[in-house]
Each structure stands twice: as structure tokens, then as C-alpha cells.
């Protein structure tokens, strides 16, 4: 396990940085917010990112992937964080695509993976039903009906859920909320009768949706994996997503920290740079320390995702450590960035606020600090 990016990963990071700085800088995100387009991201940027191969990174060559593993996603999500770029890479590729690859039968894989990799279609994952992430509490009910299944219930916080072509819906076919056994995964087309998709506009101005499934009837071919045994694949995919979010959070935190440090060196009050004040210096130094610890945890999580022989508990521990530390650090950095910028820090004119908002959403998405602290301990 290496805790340092390889030369290949560094090349990828450089190219992602150049691409996003040119095509999807913070100002673009601001435009998306002010002139909302339906998908919450710039489709042309996404098409170009697909051309660069981003959507193919984690998949094997047999399916048209690059077989780079999840490690290849780290540098890209860091760059997306730095530039505050919005793309459906997390929802469609890392979460939805992973589940089709991990659990799908050959027909499902053939139908979906190529479409995801080429960007022709988008998948979104519908797992949470409450405000706080807790996948084992899935309660949305699926019962056997005819040759297929009938689904009834609501989903909350579906990332990039507006305009997706289909949803991977986690549903309960056995047991009760809290049981990891009895969770099944279904592919639900966006046009399924009884499915209502509505916007859930969050402070980060991205694409987020709620789903209502009212007696949605699916054929037998909609089941992804085997009945009642969706948990292992779901956790694997969620851990990939959590790690990617940790990378995005670290990218945002590093960018915000650099911006704030620059401000400390240029802003003059009391006839001196405010960065000469020890009260601010020590706070900045502590943020630097948290960033360094976050990076180590992130690198360990990225490395563990691609280890074939890794047990789920070790993976869970390292991923939760990374999401916990990166989320906690990003919140600290974002809060301090606003405070240290003073009055201008609370204006919409400054980009700091945009970062703060995305940090809070990404930190909460797929498990907040407390969730991952508990999960780390549970996997000791």
C-alpha cells in the first residue's frame, strides 16, 4: 500500500487540473447556480471529461474501461474539489456504475456499463430515506409481484437524481430497518409508472432529488444481484463514493486554505499584515496539520479500495477514517476561511461562501463526521 501518488496518478492530476481550471472553474459553478440548467452540471464539460476517459477509469477493459482502479479517481476528485466543479462522475460512475459492475448480470452490464462509460446515459443511486445517511435503515418496501417486484416508499437525497436515465434503488425485501440482510438492489427506469422525481435544492446548487415510488411495478430483470443480498455490493460502492467525496473535500479544503493564507499575507489592518498576528498564525498552523493528517488518511483509503484481498472491515475502517478526517478538516478550514476573511467572508461576492456550502453538503453526503466515527469504532 503506497501513501504517495504514483507518476501515473500525478499525470492524471495535472491533466484534470488543467482541464477543470480552463473548462469548469469556480466562476462556471457560479453561472450554473445563477442560470440553473436542469442537470446541475454543464453537459458539454461532462462530454469532454468523458472524452478524457474519466468515466472509464474504474472499469475493466472488457467493458470498455481503463482498468485504472479507484486510485485513479483520487486525483480527479481532488481537482474537482479545488475548482468546485460539478459533474455526474460520483453518481453515475462511482456509485451507479460500480453497482452494475459489482452486482449486475451480463445482460445488465452489457446494457449499462458502456452507456455509462460513453456518457450516453446516467445512473443515480437512491439509498437514503432520511436526512442523515444510514444505509442499513433502508425501509422502502419491495414485494414479489407476478414475475417481478413492486416497490413502495420514498427516497431522499438522491445525488444527481434529476434527469437520470435510471436509478439503483436500495429496497427492503426482508427483515427490518437496521438489518443489513434483506436489502435488495433494483434498477428502476426514470419513466417507470408510479415514480415521481422532484428537486431537492440544497445550498450547493447542484443536482439533488427526492423520489416517490408509488406501487412501482418492475419486471424480474430489474433485480440487481440476488434477492436480499445487496448489502456487500452496496457498501463497496458506497465506500468508493465516500472516498471520492473525501478527496473532493480535501481538494476544497486545500484550495480554501491557500486562498485564506494568501489573504492573511495581503490584508493590512493596524498597519500590518494580519498574518503577523500570532492568534491567527497558530490557527492557520493547526489547519495545516489537519490537512496533512487528512491527506495521509485519504491516501490509505484510496489504496485500500483496489486491494483485492482486503476484508470489508479493514476497508470500512480506512474509508471511514478518511471521510471523517477530510470532512472534519474541510469544515474547520471553511469556517476559519470565512472568519479570517472578516466582513468580505460573509458576502456572496467572495468564492469562499460557495466552497463553504459545498463542503457542508459533501461532508454530510454518504455519512457525516459522527456517522464515520461510529462506523470506524464498530469495525475495530
Amino acid at each position, binding site marked *: 500500500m*503506497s*501513501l*504517495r501518488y504514483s507518476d501515473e496518478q500525478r499525470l492524471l492530476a495535472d491533466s484534470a487540473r488543467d482541464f477543470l481550471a480552463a473548462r469548469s472553474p469556480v466562476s462556471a459553478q457560479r453561472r450554473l447556480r445563477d442560470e440553473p440548467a436542469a442537470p446541475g452540471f454543464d453537459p458539454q464539460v461532462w462530454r469532454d471529461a468523458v472524452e478524457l476517459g474519466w468515466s472509464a477509469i474504474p472499469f475493466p477493459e472488457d467493458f470498455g474501461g481503463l482498468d485504472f482502479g479507484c486510485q485513479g479517481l483520487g486525483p480527479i476528485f481532488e481537482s474537482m474539489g479545488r475548482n468546485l466543479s460539478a459533474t455526474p462522475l460520483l453518481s453515475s460512475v462511482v456509485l451507479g456504475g460500480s453497482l452494475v459492475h459489482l452486482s449486475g448480470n451480463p445482460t445488465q452490464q452489457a446494457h449499462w456499463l458502456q452507456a455509462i462509460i460513453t456518457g450516453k446515459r446516467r445512473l443515480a443511486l437512491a439509498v437514503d430515506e432520511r436526512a442523515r445517511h444510514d444505509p442499513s435503515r433502508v425501509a422502502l418496501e419491495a414485494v414479489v409481484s407476478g414475475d417481478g417486484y413492486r416497490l413502495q416508499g420514498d427516497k431522499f437525497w438522491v445525488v444527481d437524481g434529476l434527469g437520470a436515465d435510471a436509478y439503483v434503488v436500495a429496497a427492503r425485501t426482508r427483515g427490518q430497518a437496521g438489518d443489513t440482510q434483506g436489502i435488495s438492489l433494483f434498477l428502476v427506469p426514470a419513466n417507470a409508472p408510479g415514480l415521481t422525481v422532484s428537486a431537492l435544492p440544497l445550498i450547493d446548487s447542484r443536482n439533488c432529488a427526492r423520489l416517490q415510488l408509488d406501487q412501482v411495478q418492475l419486471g424480474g430483470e430489474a433485480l440487481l444481484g440476488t434477492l436480499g443480498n445487496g448489502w456487500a455490493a452496496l457498501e463497496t460502492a458506497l465506500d468508493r463514493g465516500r472516498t471520492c467525496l473525501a478527496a473532493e473535500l480535501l481538494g476544497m479544503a486545500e484550495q480554501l486554505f491557500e486562498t485564506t*493564507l494568501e489573504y*492573511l*499575507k495581503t490584508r493590512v489592518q493596524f498597519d*500590518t*499584515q494580519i*498574518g*503577523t*498576528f*500570532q492568534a*491567527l*498564525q*497558530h490557527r*492557520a*498552523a*493547526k489547519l*495545516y*496539520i489537519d490537512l*496533512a*493528517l*487528512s*491527506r*495521509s*488518511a485519504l*491516501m*490509505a483509503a484510496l489504496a485500500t479500495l483496489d486491494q483485492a484481498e482486503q476484508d470489508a472491515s479493514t476497508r470500512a475502517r480506512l474509508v471511514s*477514517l478518511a471521510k*471523517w*478526517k477530510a470532512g472534519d478538516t474541510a469544515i474547520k478550514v471553511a469556517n476559519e476561511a470565512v472568519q479570517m476573511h472578516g466582513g468580505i467572508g460573509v458576502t456572496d461576492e467572495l468564492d469562499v461562501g460557495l466552497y463553504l456550502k459545498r463542503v457542508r453538503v459533501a461532508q454530510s453526503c454518504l455519512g457525516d463526521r*459522527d456517522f464515520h*466515527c*461510529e462506523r*470506524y*469504532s464498530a469495525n*475495530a
Partner: protein
Amino acid sequence: MSTIEQFRQDTRAWLEANCPPSMRTGMAEGDVVWGSQNPQFPCEDARLWFERMRDKRWFCPEWPEEYGGAGLNEQQVAVLESEMRRIKCRPPQISLGVWMLGPVLLAYGSEQQKRDLLPPIARGEVRWCQGFSEPNAGSDLASLKMAARDAGDHFVVDGSKIWTSYGDKSDWMYALVRTDFSVPKHEGISLIVLDMRSPGVKPQPIDLISGKSAFCQVFFDAVKVPKSQLIGPLNGGWNLAKYLLQHERKAMSKFGEFSLPSHVDLPGLMREYVPAPQSRSEHALHARAATCAMNEHAYNLTVQRMGEEARAGDDISGLMAIMKYVHTEQERDKFEVLIDAMAGHALGWDSEVFSEQQMTVSRSWLNSYALTISGGSSEVQLNVIAKRVLGLSDAKKGVNP
């Protein structure tokens, strides 16, 4: 086979044959051997291991042969260290002479000084202590006042040094003294070495809040030190001190590899003392403990990452600057949780009512207060990060962290 591969094979074979199996285990505090005029060995194997490594000249393998070293090149030293790590050899001795003073003598000592001082260090025959801090020169070390007055062929030294580890057990001291009071403080400091048995030298052990300690205050009353024992240029001691402290950091990082097993296994103790949390406060204690464990995990990964980056030739100065702060602050945070979790069991003092483990926790907790102060306080560490790593400048002129 390449020469270095041959060297690795020879080294491996020699270590296998000569490092006693009992010297390939973790160490307790009493197992440390200090090179000294009268070395003490916890067991016969420790003596054997000491003598064999000494005779191999591997106490300081990279020193030139004429000064008692083995003259190994950098590559060979790296091989030796990795082979020792491989079978978990204990350090055969601990010596400030090897780690701290030696490199300074090699770089700045006169030929005579090298010939006089280095070979006994290389044979583990002298126990050195460090005389830097003074009662009024702690974080602001350069304000030190211990005077070395010019008296012809010798200096007369008056004043005192504090926080000298094992000052009462050492044979010689290297010390920073003031040789000029009339110039800015960094420019009037010199480095000298002196025999701790000289008349007028009086070490006095210091009791800490945790009890007995290795620290001493050392008093100097008109102590005569021959001028031949001045190291480097007169009034040029500050640069030598900085050079020496760089080696302290390097030595500490090496020592870290052999580090003593931590007495404090927080998750284990939590399971023992708050086994099945019931109340909200017990759950809260477990949550606090989990945070500590996670931060410690992130720190350990950072140590590992720093090692990888160093081997790859990356700049690790930023990471090095945070290590002392992170480790000592985390240790103290851990004790804060532990003392609350163990409560009365961890607050005992010298009584058979308490188990050895409980007493260790109490003492280690009290001792952890010293960790965030000694070797550069946490506040100084943060100053260093802010100025040297983040490039924030100092409002007050003339203060160097």
C-alpha cells in the same frame, strides 16, 4: 553480485550470528543501555550485543575509521539499518555522543579534538549530556546567560543549566555558554565540552509532578574549562547549536523506529474500564476515545507517508515540522479521556491499592504534561509551522523560532 548486495548478505549473516535472540524484542525502559565509563547492562546478552557491535565499530558506522567508525558509505549504512530493522535488533546503546555531539565535532571540531573525543564515543566509553536550557532561557534559548569568562588559557564558567537529562549520571557535557555579553544575543554564544567531574560542577535531580525524573539542574561555580575544549569558533556557537538540533530531530526519528512500546493502549483500556457503555456519559466517553484513536491512526499513517516521501526524494520539511506537535498533543488528549474513563483508578499515588498498570497510567499522564513543553513547546512548534512552512512573517523583529 554487486558490492552492496554482497554487503547486505554479509551484514545479514553477521547480525543473525551475533545479535542474541533476546535482543530482538521490544524494550522496556529499564532495558536501555547507555554507553558510559561504567556501562550498566540489564542482562548478559545486552553486554554481549554491546561488545560485539562496538568491536564491529557499528555504534557509528558512517564515521571515518581514523575516528573509530567503520567508514561505511551512505548506501551501506542504509543497508545496515534496514537489516537491523528486519530482525528488530535493539539499539546496542543509546548515546548523545553518537547522535548529537559527534556530527558537530566531525563538521566543526579541530583535528586534535576529533582524535581526542571521537574514538571514546565510538567505543561507547563516555556518557554525554546536553547543557542548553537555563532557568531563564527556555523557549527563548538564545537568551542564555551561563558565563564563560576568558582567564588566559582557560574559561571560568559560572551559572546553571536545567532540564539536563541524566546530568547526574553523565561523564561529560556539551554546553552552550555566553562568551560575549556586549553583542546581540545570538552572536555571543559558544559551544564548549567539559568533564562533569571538574571541581565546581554540581548536578541536582529534579522531581516532577509525575515523581522522580531523569532531569537535573546542573550548577557551575567557577568551573575551569581549558580553552582547547571550545568547539568551533569563539562566539560562533549558535550555528553549531542549530546544526546539532537538526541531528536531534534526525536522531529522534531514528529512535522512533525502536520506540518503546506505548504503555497506553486506549481502546484496550476503554474495553476494560467502560466495557459495555450504558449511560449517555459512557457513550460519550467512547465517542471521545474513538476520536483519539482515529487521530492516532491518521498520525501513524502520516509517519508512514513521510517515510515513503523521504525515500522518493520529496520535500518532507512541512511534515517534519508538524510531527512533534501532533504526537505530543495527541498523547495528552488520550490521557484526558483515559483519566475520565478510569477516574479513581487512575488518580492513585504510591499505594498497593492500585495495580501497576493503573500507577503507570497515573504517572504517564502526569508525565505527558512535560511532553508538550520539552524539546520546543507546542506554541513554539506552531510558530515554526506558521513562519517556516506557511511563510507568515513575524510582527516582532528579531525573534526566530
